[in-house]
Structures are given as C-alpha cells and as structure tokens.
C-alpha cells in the first residue's frame, strides 16, 4: 500500500519536473548546431536566417510555442512567438518563402543537421553529440 503510494508520488513528482522542464528552459542550455562540415556562423546570421531576411542556410524549427522555441527566438531575435509569426506571415503571403520546417524534438533536428551541411538548427545542449557541431551557444 505504502509502496504503491510512494510510486504514485514519485510518478507525480516526475510529471511535475517534466512539466516544469517543458515550460522553462534556460538560454544557456540551448545551442545552435550545424553540420560538422559547415562554415562558422554569427549570431547576426542566425537572426537573419530565422526571421527570413537571408536564405544562405535552411533554418529548422522546433514546435511553435514549445519552451525551447520561445526561449530560442527571445534570445536569438529579441521577439516573441506572435511577432515571429507576424514576420513569417508577411514573407509567406507575399510568395517569398515558407516558414522554417518544424521538427518534433531536438533528436529530429540533430538528425536532420547531421545529414545536411546546408541546414541549421537549435537543440538542448545536453542532446549534442559528435554527429553535429555547436555553431554558437545561445547565451
């Protein structure tokens, strides 16, 4: 009985931790990644790519409105999700281009970046491995 209760409590605890992790992520825990064969990149270039001003590389997104998405855009571009959506709406509805493709999680972004030297992405620092190169820390 008490074991079942403690299991329930720890499950609840894990859920709370997971929810907190989902709603808050620190900028220093996010990194911009490129393919190991890609050229270095600056913070200004990242803002240009993710706000559609430049198309030198293809930017990859995470799910719009997710914690990592919100924190990434805040730090990299100084804008919130609605502002970013407004900017891409203008680009989209003038036929200039489609917004960055959204991938479900950091694993998917890492896989795509590892496979293509012409794309750029952002993931949790903890997800980095040898298949990709950290282009710059977000903070």
């Amino acid at each position, binding site marked *: 009985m008490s074991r079942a209760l403690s299991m329930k409590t720890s499950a609840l605890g894990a859920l709370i931790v997971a929810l907190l992790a989902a709603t808050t992520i620190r900028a220093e825990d996010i990194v911009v990644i490129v393919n190991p064969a890609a050229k270095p990149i600056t913070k*200004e270039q990242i*803002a*240009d790519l993710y706000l559609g*001003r*430049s*198309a*030198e590389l293809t930017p990859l997104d995470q799910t*719009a*409105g997710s914690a990592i998405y919100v924190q990434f855009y805040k730090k990299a*571009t*100084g*804008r*919130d*999700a*609605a*502002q970013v*959506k*407004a*900017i891409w*709406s*203008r680009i*989209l*509805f*003038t*036929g200039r281009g*489609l917004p960055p493709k959204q991938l479900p999680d950091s694993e998917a972004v890492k896989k795509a970046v590892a496979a293509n030297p012409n794309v750029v992405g952002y993931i949790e620092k903890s997800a980095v491995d040898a298949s990709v190169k950290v282009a710059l820390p977000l903070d």
Partner: protein
Amino acid sequence: MKFKWHPAAAAAILGLGTLPVYADPTIDQYVHFSAFGTLGEVYSDYRQADFTGEFLQPHGAGFSRRWSPTPDSDLGGQADLRILDGLTGVVQVIARDNDDGNFKPRVEWANIKYAFTPDLAVRVGRTLLPTYERSDSQNVGYALPWVRIPNEIRYSNSATHSDGVDVLYRIKTGAVIQDLQVQFGRTSEEFSGAVFHGKDLIVVSDTVQYGNTSVHLAYQTMMYTFSTLPPARFRLASAGFTYDPGTWFVTGDSNFTYYDFFGHFYAWYLSVGMHVGRFTPYLVYATEDAPTSEPPSGLTALGDERTVGAGVRWDFAKNIDFKLQLQRVIIETTDAPASFNNVQPGLRVGDKANVVSLTLDFVF
C-alpha cells in the same frame, strides 16, 4: 497576361486553404496551403461621407450606416507549389470589398518563379507592386502593426498589381542584405464606373536590410488610361524605412506621384509602437496632399486629408490578434478625400471624422 478566374474555382482554393492538408506527406512536398483573414467593424461619426478601408470601396461607415464590416474584412487563401528544384509557384486568391461593393474573390498573386542561383530569380505572372514598404502585404491584417495601411499612402497609386515579368537579385555586403527588383508588366484596376489601365509598366525597387533596420526605395513609371481619357504618363517615387529591434518600432513611408492628368500627389506616414507583453500600442500620423494648382483634370487638392490615430494590437491567442484603433481624419478637400467615398453635398473642407475600428486578424 490576363487571369480570368471562375468564382467557384477561387472558392475551392479558399475552401482547401481551411483544411489541415498535412495528412499526406507526399503531397506536402509539392504543395503548401495557407490562409489569412480579418473580421472587422468600423464606426464613423461623420455623416457626410462613408469612411472606407481603401479608395476603391464604394461604401463604408458614416453616411450609409454608422457601423460597417466592409472596410477591413477579408479572407485569403494561398497555395505554394514546389514544382522542381528552383522552380516554385504561388497562387493567392482574396475576397475583399471591391469597387462593386461585393466580396467577389480576385487573384492577388499568381506567378511562377525560377531561381537560377540562391540570389538570382525570375518571376512570370502576377505580383503586387512594391509601391510602398508594406504594399505587398497590405491586405494581410495579421502581418500589419495597425488595423490597415494608412489610406493616405494607399491613395497615391491607382494600380496595386503587375502582370508581367520581374528579375530579383540579392546582394550581400557583410551584414547588409540588398534585394533589387526590376519589373516589366501591365496592370488594370476597376473603379466604380471606370477602369484604370496601365501599360509599359516599369518598376525598379531596392530593399536594404541591416539587422533590425530596413529601407525600401522604389520607382515606377507607366502609360495609363482612365475611363475615356487619352493615354497619359504616371510616375511614382517612394522611400520608406522601419527600425524594429523587437521591443519597439518606428516606421515611415513617403510617396511622390505624378499623373499627367491629375497632377502631383504627395503622401507620407510615420508610426511608432511599443511591445509590452502581448500588447503592442502604437501611434500613427498620415497625410496626403495634391499641391498642383490647376491640373488638366480640374480636380484640385484631390484626396487631401490628414489622420491622427492611436491603437493597440493584442496577441491574445496563437495565430490570432485583436486590434482597436481610434483615429481622427481631417478632411482638406471636397474632391474625393482619400479615406472617403459616397461624398454628400454637405461635406466641407475642415470637417473632422472620428473613426473607431475593431478587427480580429488570423492566419492558418
């Protein structure tokens, strides 16, 4: 090049745009559907004319009715096509109150683009003219900081689109990105009871971006006919800028237009806004002045007016915003002031209209 669209076909595209079309990943590679729209209501306390959302609309709020949904409401659907590597296409259909006072859908964009390199492309088909900084997205409320583009600057060009060909070239110099455009085409625009035709249309535009700063320069020239008038020359030079670091913005635009028959038009606006959480309050000042003392048309001070306005954008939910805008329009002519139509004999220079606009803008 002329695009005649059956309303049913246009409605089908609009209908498709409302469906989540991501179920089949193979189709997703070739075509992308999206849509936008605005639901608006406008109130005007001025009874001697109708306040409109653009000069083409025959009716609005004020004289015909106190509240009107027609100035700003619209619905647009778009299909982006990826045909081959480097070869893409876009078709956008929009339903918006027009010269006939109905919402018959029309084709806003329809072009095929081929990119020779990432920085050099050619487009063939219909595009919106780069008359001022935001003329290419003037009907996409969600992409605008205000309820609508200031009517004063919208008034300075009778044409909105070009059917023809253009070359786009991007030049990068360090962190400065320059987009050059040269366009050749023709255009036409239907007014209540008359048609504006433009041919030999040539446009040169340059958009310079440096981080959060952008500058837009454009020059247009064409030969136009309006109603039964003989062909005459049209020229327009425009310059606009925006500085938007995210927390606040300042933006301005100016047009200098010359019509052989109607004379000179000078229009500009300046706007500042702040971003506070989900709210973006803003101020805007706009003016249009036609200084030619004796144009061949005999219409002096065509369109003259000034607007002082304040408003707020509220991004209260994902992909949808609510805007409230209060403005005072000072009428400076009896000849078709830029924001008004359906002008009554009682209209006097110096009259003021107080206008309240509410809109819901959405994209999906």
